[in-house]
């Protein structure tokens, strides 16, 4: 198994700042906007962006939640392993809000399809956008595209994009791994 670095810590940091600025461009003070990290891996990126918006860009009204999509996935009973559920933490109503889904890698689009269904349990959003750190553009199974993307990657199916965060792996780095 070989792996190469797609983004190092410095590049991840620059991209996070750019994504934060792009969000501010569209959502200004975030009063009508909520950020929703897709569990399990989107939560790290969502937390990081929320901290950045609060601390570096002094935006006070950031509402952040985490959405688990396990029970809404379309591959229940289809894989070898059972699907493990994660926590959903959404303590606000999304009715008439601008929702920004945040996930680390956009691959087939199936997770986002599940998230689109799952979020309906919390109300009818005004609109939904998608922010993703890595967009694997040639791997889509569904017509789903990101609104904001960190880096576009052309990877083949046999390769895997691995995103490590300071919080779970000790450093911010993105690898392209040959399986």
């Amino acid at each position, binding site marked *: 198994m070989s792996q190469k670095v797609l983004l190092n810590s410095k590049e991840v940091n620059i991209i996070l700042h750019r994504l934060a600025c792009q969000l501010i461009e569209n959502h200004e003070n975030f009063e009508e906007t909520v950020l929703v990290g897709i569990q399990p891996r989107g939560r790290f990126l969502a937390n990081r962006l929320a901290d950045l918006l609060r601390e570096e860009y002094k935006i006070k009204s950031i509402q952040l939640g985490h959405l*688990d999509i*396990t*029970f*809404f*996935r379309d591959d*229940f*009973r*289809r894989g070898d*392993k*059972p*699907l*493990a*559920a*994660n*926590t*959903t933490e959404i303590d606000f*109503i999304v009715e008439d809000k601008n929702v920004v889904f945040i996930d680390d890698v956009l691959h087939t689009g199936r997770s986002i399809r599940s998230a689109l*269904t*799952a979020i*309906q*349990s*919390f*109300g009818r959003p005004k609109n939904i956008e998608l922010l993703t750190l890595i967009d694997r553009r040639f791997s889509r199974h569904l017509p789903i595209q990101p609104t904001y993307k960190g880096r576009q990657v052309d990877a083949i199916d046999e390769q895997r994009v691995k995103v490590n965060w300071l919080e779970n792996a000790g450093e911010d780095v993105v690898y392209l791994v040959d399986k």
Partner: protein
Amino acid sequence: MSELSVDHLLGIKYLNKTDIELIFETADQFKEVINRPIKKVPSLRDITIANLFFENSTRTKLSFELAEKRLSADVINFSASQSSVKKGETLVDTVNNILSMKVDMVVMRHPNPGAGVFLSKHVKASIINAGDGAHEHPTQALLDSYSIRERLGGVKGKNVVIVGDILHSRVALSNIYALQLQGANVKVCGPKTLIPKYIESLGVKVETNLRKALEWCDVANMLRVQNERMEISYFPSTREYTQQFGVNKTLLDSLDKEIVIMHPGPINRGVEITSDVADSKQAIILDQVENGVAVRMAVIYLLASKIKQ
């Protein structure tokens, strides 16, 4: 992720500690789901579940049906009083007839102990035991432990007394297994006539003095006196039973600590517990009912994930 070690939920006896932890962790997520504005998830939309109740039930049946519907399963209900069982059909024939309508899972309550185990050996479907005679009632024990975990932060090391009619109670046996598996200390308390002779072989202690039992415990699970299962008289009168084994507010307030009161329902108010106890903050009876749906969703979800397409 780990999966359940069993393909059916026939009794707590067949589970291990990891199974119980997995069920509780999954139930945590379902508890969050059933408190959303929209309480339903689509996971089991291609699963059909038959609820076969060969014995009366209100809350267990409702709880299972709600759990199944919240998971988007298709549900069919059957009760023995309106069926061909009365015409002499055997259990295996009845169930096989239902299964030929492409049913994936069977939730069954039956008056005979071991009916679930028997069925699991003869039919091709995942079986959940919703009570088999005086044997086991695994989902009740799971929701009881889950409720203790929720209220006290854990089950391990807690002292739990089960009070009342132990002899006829499937809730008692399943609770003893479940609590011991999780490291709780268990005592039973009741009239000697209603305590099985060899209960101590399960590692539980017998206490016939209710006050002593309550002083010892963190949790008291008050069982209902099951008059319908009693062919003979086990105690002189209901009044005498209440005097010796009923919990009232005066008794509860006289203890030097605040214990948790549980009851699997239906309550005979004024017999095993008085109304002011049942409605007090110490009682978690309605939490048990709410948790019942979440725990049953978890059990059904985890068993369904083992049914191959």
